[in-house]
């Protein structure tokens, strides 16, 4: 009873349930403005993606037909035609690139994740990151100097070689990560039952990491398929089918270079071809990205 008569200091009369945000306070207003700005930036960032996908689908998707995939590119002002040779050329060059970069990349990653200790592994990881930042046009210049000049001809090999160098950093980095995710206990168990190091890696660690490695390779392939700069003066372009009897030692068409070549000509039929070609490229990238997402959702261990 007596306690009631003594008034509490104001600070202790605070009832937490009555607390309210003061929307007039500059701190709150500042926060609300910044939230609005960040939402605005998020929307701004996605607008170009939406617009590019929209135009490529409208302009390119509507031109899709069977002929597109089996016919040769049309001359100016002639209706019809397709980019069968470019599609085959892209597949050949990406395959050459993968055939070089996957074995080298996976072995290099095995060294980094399994055997590499100390300075060498550090330096190789560093070199790999730097290599991934080398502009693709420089890789093209390099492939030109090494292969085109030596063989005195533009070729699918030079294009494939350039692609291999561009794919290598992605494959090494993703395989390295994939191998590191395999728990140490699995390796210990394998060594414990008498396996050699190479048996442990090839029979136990690598199989467990395969889904993630495949994902990395798929993404590298998707990126390489869209690369244009390293192909312009290594594989060049041609209106004709790849010539196997010549061991592919001649200019080879590719989808990306076709899009580039036909984008800068004034002929409407070839421009349509460019849009159809980029629709195929974008669709392929989209498909592999989604597939890669779904594949990494599953883990062996």
């Amino acid at each position, binding site marked *: 009873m007596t306690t009631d008569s003594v008034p509490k200091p104001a600070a202790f009369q605070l009832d937490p349930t009555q607390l309210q945000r003061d929307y007039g306070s500059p701190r709150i207003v500042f926060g609300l403005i910044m939230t609005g700005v960040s939402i605005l930036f998020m929307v701004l960032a996605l607008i170009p993606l939406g617009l590019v996908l929209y135009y490529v689908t409208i302009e390119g998707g509507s031109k899709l037909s069977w002929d597109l995939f089996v016919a040769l590119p049309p001359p100016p002002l002639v209706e019809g035609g397709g980019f069968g040779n470019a599609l085959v050329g892209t597949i050949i060059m990406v395959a050459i690139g993968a055939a070089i970069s996957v074995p080298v990349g996976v072995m290099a990653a095995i060294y980094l994740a399994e055997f590499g200790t100390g300075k060498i592994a550090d330096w190789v990881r560093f070199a790999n*990151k730097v290599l991934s930042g080398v502009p693709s046009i*420089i890789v093209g210049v390099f492939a030109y100097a090494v292969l085109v000049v030596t063989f005195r001809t533009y070729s699918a090999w030079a294009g494939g070689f350039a692609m291999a160098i561009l794919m290598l950093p992605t494959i090494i980095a993703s395989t390295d990560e994939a191998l590191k995710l395999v728990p140490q206990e699995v390796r210990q168990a394998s060594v414990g039952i008498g396996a050699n190091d190479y048996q442990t890696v090839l029979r136990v660690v690598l199989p467990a990491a395969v889904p993630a490695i495949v994902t990395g390779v798929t993404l590298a392939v998707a990126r390489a398929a*869209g690369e244009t700069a390293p192909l312009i003066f290594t594989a060049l372009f041609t209106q004709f089918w790849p010539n196997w009897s010549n061991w592919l030692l001649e200019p080879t068409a590719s989808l990306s270079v076709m899009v580039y070549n036909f984008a800068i000509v004034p002929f409407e039929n070839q421009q349509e071809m460019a849009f159809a070609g980029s629709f195929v490229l974008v669709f392929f990238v989209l498909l592999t990205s989604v597939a890669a997402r779904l594949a990494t959702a599953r883990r062996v261990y």
Partner: protein
Amino acid sequence: MQPRAASERFFDTAFKRLALIAALAVAAALLWITCIVALRALPALSEFGLEFLVTSTWNPPRNAYGILPSMYGTVVSSVIALMISVPIGLGVAIFLSEDYIPPGVQRILVFLVELLAAVPSVVYGLWGIFVLIPFLKEITPLRGPGMLPAALILAVMTLPIIAALARDAISNVPIELRQASVGLGATRWETIFRVIVPAASSGIIGGIMLALGRALGETMAATMLIGNSTNNISLSVFAPSSTIAALLANQFAEASGLQVAALMYAALILFAITLVVNILAQVVIRRLQRI
């Protein structure tokens, strides 16, 4: 118990050696690229020397070569691109690392931003030619290809790099820092600006530098949109310009003799610039990992 067979031991050693060789091949590739480009540039290097860098004529018939306009275009287009993509990329990174939206929606948005980086650059170039340039012609003094559309597309292409790396850096900031800041009475954005972003700064700066390296070396979007004016420098963003990468893409296939050497010299310059930017970026990012 019996000792391992000799063949087993041989395989084991051979396998490890092979792995080591593959790993060293990566470093060797980098050195190989450097040597080849430098070697091929040598004729032009001895012919033009450092004047190559400050001359603004590119005239193959007269064998007069200088890349000042292209260097100017390379740097200016990248800087304009980053002035747009850094704030937007940072905003996206902050938005996607706060709890504004449910994790499911957040993952989809992260995926869409990644997709922005996956679209081939030649497709951006095509879109730029047929949609962006006609649109810009309507609302600006632009009369065709030029610096502005190239820089805008470069901004779109560098944005996902900045957003992804900044988001990584931000999500690596220990949650205790955030809790301490909020516990002291800071609002969400006070926490972001005074605690989170400073703590993540080396990752953010590293990401910005990687994006700069990408913008400097990006070829197709620049070649298709910048107008390829290799002989004069214009301060207007509505005027055509050129970049080193675009110069290479345009002229390499038809070049011969001294022009090839001059182009190799240009490639060497571009390679050196991007190498320095990338190595600095790695060093900055490494500092973050030590914190």
